[in-house]
Structure formats: structure tokens, C-alpha cells
């Protein structure tokens, strides 16, 4: 490190120069960032919306159209509009080519190994089962924890994961639970991944919590999603 001592006479001048340089560079940098942000914002929002849309189609096989619904604080579901979309949780109903309700996609999140994991899963009310899962956001260890997105055997868990309700429709018969790899015996268990134990268990836990909360609510009001689909087709 240099240990030059600036002369008292030049200190204020050099201080001003430093200030000018830092402020100047700060302005240039701020301008560049703002320009990039403005330039890419629409594209990024479009990409994100597309990614979510594609994810809905992935978790609800066979659908041709989706419609967002808002879950209100009172536990009711309303068709989402541009105005109310930010007021609560959104769920996405998916309809097949005949216009019938094929399923409902929900987002869920929970703590993973590295950070919060956000997933989208599809619920089929006719089968009372989870029929698809897609990881929207995760920072799990590349090569290990990120197997929750890539491992085909793990994805097989979510082809028909049982979430059957009790006869009074108020709660699940069996909570979705993660189990160690190779120990899956029941259709409501999620077979874990060797080498991604914590991440796969996190998926099981967050799915367990989310299904326990939302599936009974959705199933009780399933006609809300069905009626509006026929209205839109007429």
C-alpha cells in the first residue's frame, strides 16, 4: 500500500476530485442499470409469465386453456382480474379441449437446503390426486439438490400422488409425507432421492403443508371453477 502523505494545500482539491470521480461514476453506473432495467423489464415479465404458463401446462396434463382465480381471505375463490390479482394467493384452473375442468394448479413454497423452494403443482379433483409438480424457483446445490427438478424417478412420485379427502371433505385422509428412497409403500408417500435427501424431503414437507391447507378448500368449492368455465365457453 502506498503511504504518500498529501500536502495540506492540495488536500481539499484532491478531495473534490475524488468526490467528482465517485459521483460521476455513480451516475454513469446508475444510468446504465436503469437503462438495462427499463430495456429488459417487459421481456423479463413476459418470460416469467410464459414460464408460469408453461409450468401450468406441465403440471396439468391435457389442458388447453387456463384461468387464474383469487383465493380471498374468507376462503372463497373468485375469478382473478387485473385489479384484484395482487390481493391474495392466485390459483390456476386448467380446462381441456371440451371446456371441462381438468385440474387446478397451485403454488407452494418452503425452506430447502439453500434457500426457499417454490413449486407449482397440479390437483385433479376427479382423481383426488396430485398429477404434476414443477419447481419454479430453487437455489439447491447444483448437481445434488437440484435433482428435485431433474430426477425422473422422483418426478414419478407426482404422477398420481394420493390426496383423497375424508368423507366430510374437511381434511385429507393421509397427509403427504416424504420417505427415504426405496421405502415408498403408500400412494401418498413421496420417495426421496439419494444424494438430495434434504431437498427432496423439503419438497415433501412443503407439499404436505400446502395440500393440507388448500385441497379441502378447493374441493369444497370445485363448482366455482367448473361454472365459470362453461360461462366463458358460451
Amino acid at each position, binding site marked *: 500500500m502506498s503511504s504518500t502523505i498529501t500536502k495540506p494545500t492540495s488536500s481539499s482539491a484532491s478531495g473534490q476530485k475524488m468526490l467528482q*470521480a465517485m459521483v460521476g461514476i455513480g451516475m454513469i453506473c446508475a444510468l446504465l442499470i436503469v437503462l438495462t432495467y427499463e430495456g429488459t423489464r417487459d421481456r*423479463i415479465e413476459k418470460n416469467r409469465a410464459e414460464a408460469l404458463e408453461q409450468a401450468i401446462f406441465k403440471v396439468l396434463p391435457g389442458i388447453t386453456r387456463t384461468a387464474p382465480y383469487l383465493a380471498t381471505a374468507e376462503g372463497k375463490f373468485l375469478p382473478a382480474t387485473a385489479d384484484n390479482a395482487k390481493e391474495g394467493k392466485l390459483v390456476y384452473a386448467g380446462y381441456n379441449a371440451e371446456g371441462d375442468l381438468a385440474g387446478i394448479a397451485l403454488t407452494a413454497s418452503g425452506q430447502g437446503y439453500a434457500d426457499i423452494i417454490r413449486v407449482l403443482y397440479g390437483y385433479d379433483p376427479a382423481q383426488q390426486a396430485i398429477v404434476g409438480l414443477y419447481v419454479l424457483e430453487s437455489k439447491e446445490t447444483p448437481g445434488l439438490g437440484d435433482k428435485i427438478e431433474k430426477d425422473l424417478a422422483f418426478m414419478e412420485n407426482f404422477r398420481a400422488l394420493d390426496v383423497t379427502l375424508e368423507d366430510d371433505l374437511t381434511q385429507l385422509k393421509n397427509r403427504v409425507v416424504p420417505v427415504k428412497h426405496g421405502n415408498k409403500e403408500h400412494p401418498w408417500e413421496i420417495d426421496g432421492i439419494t*444424494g438430495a435427501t434434504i431437498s427432496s424431503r423439503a419438497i415433501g414437507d412443503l407439499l404436505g403443508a400446502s395440500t393440507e391447507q388448500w385441497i379441502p378448500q378447493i374441493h369444497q368449492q370445485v363448482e366455482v371453477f367448473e361454472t365459470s368455465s362453461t360461462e366463458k365457453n358460451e
Partner: protein
Amino acid sequence: MSKQDQPTTSATVPPTTDEFIKGLWRDNPVFVQVLGMCPVLAVSNTAVNALAMGLATAFVLLMSNVLVSALRNFIPKQVRIASYILIIATFVTITDYAIQAISVDLHKSLGAFISLIVVNCLILSRAEAFAAKNTIGRSVLDALGMGLGFTFALLCLGAIRELMGNGSLFGLAVFPANFQSWIVMILPAGGFFTLALLLLGINALQQRQKQTQS
């Protein structure tokens, strides 16, 4: 910083292809200078991640070298490091937005490592040791050489580790399905093993070159 940080070539020489070539091989940032080890070891577990990370770093290196070189007479010595970090962080933010605009999937797979380009000492060292003392033209060549050299090194590591640890290359299966993958190659330890072996090989190669020359 002392005068030892002066570039190996004199600052009065006009741009030459040597500025470009030195980063690719003779002064390769990973294999010879052993700089920026955090992303080298962390993101080189698959070939795609390694390539994307290498290119993102090369872009930040190029842009920050250009700006640092252009402003080199305007930045006072006392605040140069702060200024360089500000410039580098700006271009990292821009890269982050650009990657999100190009592909959400790619952004997803690189995760936290994009933001960490800010603290890659390779970029700061090129700004301090080269761009701050040379013309824009030479700085561009230097950044291109170093950036591509870095990308090349990352790709070598990524390809070897993915091949051994996953039996695939760029996501395509190479070995038959019964290939027992070496999990350790994907873990951080595998990064150290691979890098050590590559460094061993390259040092042996360069020593032999020197012997044949003398």
C-alpha cells in the same frame, strides 16, 4: 499496490495479438494465475453451467475493462478500488438482467453465482493491473483473451466433471446406463481433484516446452 503489478509488456507498445493470446494460454487466469477459484470450483459441475458462467464473466470483464480504461485519467488513485468495484457491480447487474431476459431457465440454473461475479478477483485484477494503465484497444484485447481463457478453463473442468460424475456431456448421456457415476466429481471435492490434475498436466507441459526451447 506496488510496481510489481505492472503488466509484463510495456505500456507504450501499440495493441498486438500477444495481448489477446497471453490470456488464452501463457497467462491463463485459471491454469497459470489461479485466480477466481470460487466460481471455477463451484459452477464447473456441468458443462452448460461452466460455459454460461465463463461467458458471463468474460462479458463483465470486457465491459469493465473498457470503462476502467476509458476513465483511467479521471479516477483518483485513492478511490480507484471503490470505483472499479462500482463499475464491475454495474455490469454484473446488467448481465443478471440480460440473462433473465434471454432465458429464465438459464438464470435458474446459474442461481446465486451470477451475483458472485462481482467478487471474482480476476476481473478486479485485470482492471487494476492492466486496464487502468493501458489504452482501450489493448484493454479490450486483454479482456477478450483473459475472458475466453477463463471460459475455456471452466469448460475443461465442467466437461470432465460432468462426464465422470454424471456420465453425460452438455446434458446428453455419453456412457451406457450401467455406468457407475463418481458422485465425488460433482461435489466440491471433485472440483479440487480435477483442477489439481489439470494444473499438474499443464505445468508438466510448460516445463517440457521450456526445456526443449533451452
